[in-house]
């Protein structure tokens, strides 16, 4: 039996004006286990806390009930006071007789009666409380960043600068990501490579950063502070240590027909290649699908021309296993496939291109060396049409329901750049809305209209019809003029919706991080925890969480880094002790609980148990208390009642129910 002390707070007159506090204390004394009851002006004051401490010491209290304001207000205060007196803080329960009683009832008798019942419920609960101790888990002082685009690079740099080891895993042969494909960036028109490349170099040179390119995350186990990740380093067939990056192999490679991924398939590359000139690491990979040596066994030119002897056709994929304390997801985005938008003739005409393709065309290192030309006949266009919201803001399943956020701005940028470089080209933009919230964004867009004479027409395009003369007939409508427009264009640029990179769902599953129907990773709280996943120790950086532009991505990357640093800076993690626990003698091992756990905190072990003399090996649910957040979903879904939640146990809640219904 517990020895319980009940402390009734007057809260000045906040409680005492409508609740007869003396009566509450008096009635509490009649409850089983209660050995002490008193009332006081302000329990939360220094003097009030002192009373609690004193009573705990003098009367050897094993449990405390404070009848006061909401536990959301002062539970921590009273728990700390109890701890000072040597009592386990989790032996304290609050009866909320202010917000839930004195403040809402006018009749003294009625309010007092209710206060007595609320107190009774708290006493009934404390009778079943057990001392709880926060668990501890160690923190591996190393972070993993999945994705080597600007988001991943920035996060890695920030974490590394704080003094922690960081690994970046990048699927492609080089880091750099989408940003490395861009020509100029809005709203300042900086050259993308000029601002990105130094960051890439800095990351690769940073002593705390280790980059795995051409690698993928294979397996994740463990939990916050103590993840174990297997990384598959795909065979490059080029020795990273020996290669000098001279580029001769790429020059001499006889197989040059593979479409260049980096240039969005607008031109070709060799079978041994680096995606772009500033690639980091500047070590090529062999694409075995197009390599003649791999396909026929004959060739080996690269090996012959390599002075460093770096070519190694026998290389195998390698699995690296590494421990991490925190994981940042920065997997970025791609543009959607346009198969569902036949009306824009993307697959019918080479002159209908996506904006990302236009970036490559406009880039001096791109397939046309920066010249704006039609891919059908190489001629310079005179009439250009941009179509906005292709696949964005779409209610049916042809496209995406969200706004891709970046298109308005990059289209303004493209239009402006074209008008600047080729003043004789007419540029028309068909838009639904122009969205420019951001610093200097609207000014930028207005400049495109006012200074560069870009023709903005409100109204979506219905159809693009390739003409026999090689032109593209764009059929749109001008909603403001109320007329239908038929316009012959030389090139049409589609502001294609963006979507999270494919494969992110697989990664999310491995990390047990939640993901929404659009494949964006879900944040722990939409407003207050936007860079954390609900799964502890997993952080979100960049577009994997939602569409955003470069400055926002970099800001979020920094924020994610700070969150990760905050975690890595701790030596040990204290875990919430109000976690679920499985009774191994009752557990069926049925996996139902794991199905509803939002945190992936439940795993199964084959464990030898002694069930009243029967010894056998059983499949038993084991809760990782470092991951468990204590929601209790598992406790209800468990058919045998093996799962219970500490601090809110079945018996505790039932005792409260009983006390209230008495």
């Amino acid at each position, binding site marked *: 039996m517990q020895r319980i002390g009940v402390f009734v707070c007057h809260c000045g007159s906040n409680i005492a004006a409508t609740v007869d506090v003396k009566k509450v204390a008096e009635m509490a004394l009649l409850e089983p286990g209660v050995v002490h009851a008193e009332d006081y002006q302000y329990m939360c004051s220094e003097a009030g806390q002192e009373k609690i401490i004193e009573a705990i010491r003098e009367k050897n209290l094993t449990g405390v009930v404070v009848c006061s304001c*909401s*536990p*959301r207000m002062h539970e921590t205060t009273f728990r700390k006071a109890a701890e000072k007196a040597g009592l386990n803080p989790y032996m304290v329960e609050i009866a*909320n007789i*202010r*917000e*839930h*009683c004195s*403040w*809402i*009832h*006018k*009749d003294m008798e*009625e*309010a007092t*009666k*209710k206060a007595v*019942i*609320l107190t009774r*419920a708290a006493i009934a609960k404390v009778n079943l409380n057990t001392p709880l101790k926060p668990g501890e888990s160690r923190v591996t002082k190393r972070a993993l960043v999945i994705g080597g685009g600007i988001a991943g690079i920035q996060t890695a740099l920030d974490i590394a600068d704080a003094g922690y080891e960081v690994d970046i895993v990048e699927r492609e042969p080089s880091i750099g990501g989408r940003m490395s494909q861009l020509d100029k960036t809005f709203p300042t028109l900086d050259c993308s490579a000029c601002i990105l490349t130094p960051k890439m170099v800095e990351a690769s040179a940073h002593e705390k950063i280790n980059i795995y390119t051409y690698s993928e995350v294979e397996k994740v186990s463990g939990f916050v502070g103590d993840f174990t990740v297997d990384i598959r380093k795909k065979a490059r067939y080029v020795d990273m240590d020996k290669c000098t990056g001279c580029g001769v192999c790429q020059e001499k490679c006889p197989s040059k027909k593979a479409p260049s991924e980096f240039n969005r398939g607008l031109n070709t590359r060799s079978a041994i290649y680096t995606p772009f000139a500033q690639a980091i690491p500047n070590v090529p990979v062999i694409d075995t699908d197009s390599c003649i040596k791999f396909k026929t066994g004959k060739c080996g030119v690269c090996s012959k021309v390599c002075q460093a002897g770096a070519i190694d056709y026998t290389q195998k994929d390698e699995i690296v296993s590494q421990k991490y304390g925190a994981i940042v997801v920065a997997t970025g985005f791609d543009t959607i496939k346009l198969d569902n938008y036949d009306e824009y003739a993307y697959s019918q005409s080479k002159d209908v291109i996506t904006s990302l393709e236009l970036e490559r065309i406009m880039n001096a290192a791109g397939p046309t060396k920066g010249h704006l030309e039609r891919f059908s006949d190489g001629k310079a266009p005179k009439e250009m049409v941009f179509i906005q919201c292709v696949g964005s803001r779409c209610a049916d399943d042809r496209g995406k329901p969200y706004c891709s956020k970046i298109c308005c701005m990059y289209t303004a940028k493209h239009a402006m750049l074209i008008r600047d470089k080729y003043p004789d080209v007419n540029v028309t933009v068909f838009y639904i809305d122009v969205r420019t919230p951001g610093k200097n964004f609207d000014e930028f867009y207005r400049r495109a209209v006012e200074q560069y004479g870009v023709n903005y027409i409100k109204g979506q395009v219905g159809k693009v019809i390739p003409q026999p003369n090689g032109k593209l007939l764009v059929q749109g409508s001008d909603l403001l003029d109320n007329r239908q427009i038929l316009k012959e264009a030389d090139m049409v640029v589609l502001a294609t919706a963006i979507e999270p990179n494919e494969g992110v769902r697989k990664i999310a599953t491995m990390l047990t991080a*939640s993901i929404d129907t659009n494949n964006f990773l*879900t944040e*722990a709280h939409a407003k207050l925890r936007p860079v954390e996943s*609900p799964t502890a120790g997993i952080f979100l950086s960049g577009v994997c969480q939602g569409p955003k532009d470069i400055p926002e991505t970099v800001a979020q990357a920094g924020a994610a880094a700070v969150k990760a640093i905050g975690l890595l800076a701790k030596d040990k993690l204290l875990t919430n002790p*109000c976690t679920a626990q499985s009774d191994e003698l009752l557990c069926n091992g049925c996996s139902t609980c794991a199905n*509803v756990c*939002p945190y992936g905190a439940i795993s199964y072990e084959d464990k030898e148990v002694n069930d009243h003399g029967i010894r056998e090996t059983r499949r038993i649910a084991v809760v990782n208390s470092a991951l468990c*957040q*204590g*929601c*209790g*979903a598992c*406790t*209800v*879904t468990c058919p045998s009642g093996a799962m219970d*939640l500490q601090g*809110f146990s*079945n018996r505790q*809640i*039932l005792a*409260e*129910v*009983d006390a*209230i*219904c*008495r």
Partner: protein
Amino acid sequence: MSIEAKEEFRPKIVAFCCNWCSYAGADLAGSSRLGYPADVKIIRVPCSCRVNPMFILRAFEKGADGVIMCGCHPGDCHYSTGNYYARRRMTLLFSMLDYIGVENGRTRVEWVSAAEGVKFSTTMNEFVEKIHSLGKNVRLGDLRCRN
């Protein structure tokens, strides 16, 4: 039932409130002095998904006349998905209670956010009103628990 007897009926009502939204909503109702009958007693649970149907049945067994469960609005769960599970569980439980002949107004689920003190208070007023109209819970209560 005579008017006099009706006045004497003070229902016992148990409200399960999730810690993050509805309990806070109830606190807000309190600090905004938005009254509701004292018959409602709140039990704090971490999340609506912690509410086992057995708790609700137990409350009825022990003499409760109405049980209401409040949680974060769907989509706003502190634990991201808890209230979705709770919603399915309660839907099925309520349907079963209706099926065995328990008046369905005795149970209710309401999503109340931490900002919805007004909603909390109106909901409770409505619910108590409803229970008054239904009268004492005679179908599920255990005879032994009557005084």
